[in-house]
């Protein structure tokens, strides 16, 4: 195992963390290698968001949402589950390991679980090594041209 801290894009549904401590930790004390991207609902996550994160260089993507039957927007996470699960299985089909996409469905009473999930996922990514299936996007220079 290496000491490399993999970059993780962490999409969090606005509502899934019930305990104030957990939300506080996610908002302010996330390690540098994890980026929090808040969305109103997992149903808001366009597969293109995930692809952008992956091609931008994130080595793993975590999507945390409410339990399927307890969606804040009635059934947003059900739609997300269909679309994003199919997307991840499709990415796996073309060689991008679906172990790099993790869904965490949090119950109201899952106090302190998100920290464990993220640590576990980081561990998993370290074991997987670096991701090479997809080409990374090149940043634009000032003014919009490619380097």
């Amino acid at each position, binding site marked *: 195992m290496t000491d490399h801290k993999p970059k993780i894009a962490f999409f969090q549904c606005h509502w899934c963390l019930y305990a104030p401590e957990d939300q506080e930790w996610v908002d302010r004390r996330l390690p540098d290698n994890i980026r929090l991207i808040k969305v109103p609902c997992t149903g808001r996550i366009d*597969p*293109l968001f995930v*692809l*952008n994160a992956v*091609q931008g260089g994130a080595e793993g993507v975590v999507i945390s949402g409410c339990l*399927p*039957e307890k969606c804040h927007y009635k*059934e947003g996470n*059900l*739609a997300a*589950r*269909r*679309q994003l*699960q*199919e*997307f*991840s*299985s*499709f*990415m796996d*089909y*073309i*060689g*991008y*390991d*679906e*172990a790099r*996409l*993790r*869904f*965490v*469905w949090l119950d109201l009473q899952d106090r302190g679980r998100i920290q464990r*999930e993220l640590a576990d996922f980081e561990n998993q990514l370290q074991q997987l090594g670096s991701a*090479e*299936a*997809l*080409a*990374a*996007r*090149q940043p634009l220079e000032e003014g919009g041209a*490619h380097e």
Partner: protein
Amino acid sequence: MSELEQKIRSEAERLLKEGLVDVVIAFRKEDAPLRPQPAFFTHPEDLENLTYNGLCANNLANYLTRYPRETRIGMLVRGCENRSVNALIVEKQHSRENLYLIGIPCTGIIDWRKVIALTGEDILGYEDTDSTLIVRARHQTFRLPRQELLHPSCQRCVHPNPLSADILLGEALPEGDPTLIRARVESFEALSREERTAFFRQEAERCIRCYACREACPMCYCEECFVDHNTPRWTESGTTPAGTHAWHIIRAFHQTGRCTSCGACERACPMDIQMTYLTDKLGKDMWDYYQFAAGMDDKTQPPFAAFTMDDKKHFQAGGKLS
């Protein structure tokens, strides 16, 4: 002129003369050999140019979205085209009442590239019969076995007959073998992760971003494609690896539950890039999880338009749901 061609022509003539439709979408005789072209007949007298044979490669449903929804359209439909039309009706792109579908059981589309590979480019004429394609080249006449010349998508075709045509010209054909299309996906799935990545990269990175696949696809009718979007810029627009990867992934993914496996994208591709292995995988998933196949009727919404609590039965098994 074949008997079938004659039937199509007289049906089209009847539709136009009786004023039942404003336009008939079909094929006309080619300017270049082996390449009959889509044509839009508005006057009965134009119909003498109408043609139909196994080399008519376009999916005519593609042109449905180019007309306003009020236009009454007569359209030549084969099995896949009929399913594409159904899928478009589900997506409210035209109403069924304004469509008159002239159905033809399809014996498969001949891949002109395969023909040219055997005959060379100097072709004077050809004749498409039941089992053979007779090609008259400058120096030689070729009698080619038809089945081997079919486009791969057509060799795997499951539903060659139109499902909801207003009139069916010719005898219905037996249904195809559904395991062929699955076998292709499964054999790709069976490859190692590295082999799959290598194949995908090899195919995608040849892309020249001409978007011929998009233009040929009946389901790609967006006013503005995500690749052309500026705010935000979803992906690189040049022929960089990252850009071509994103294009092929999302183009296919946007077809989930909508692609009817007609293969028009591959036939249109100037770089001969394989694409149906992507869309077929999505189609197979939709069937396995939701018993949904695109275009089988013009009412059922595709799986992404609905969702149930039971979905997890399919998904949580993978172990990545925690």
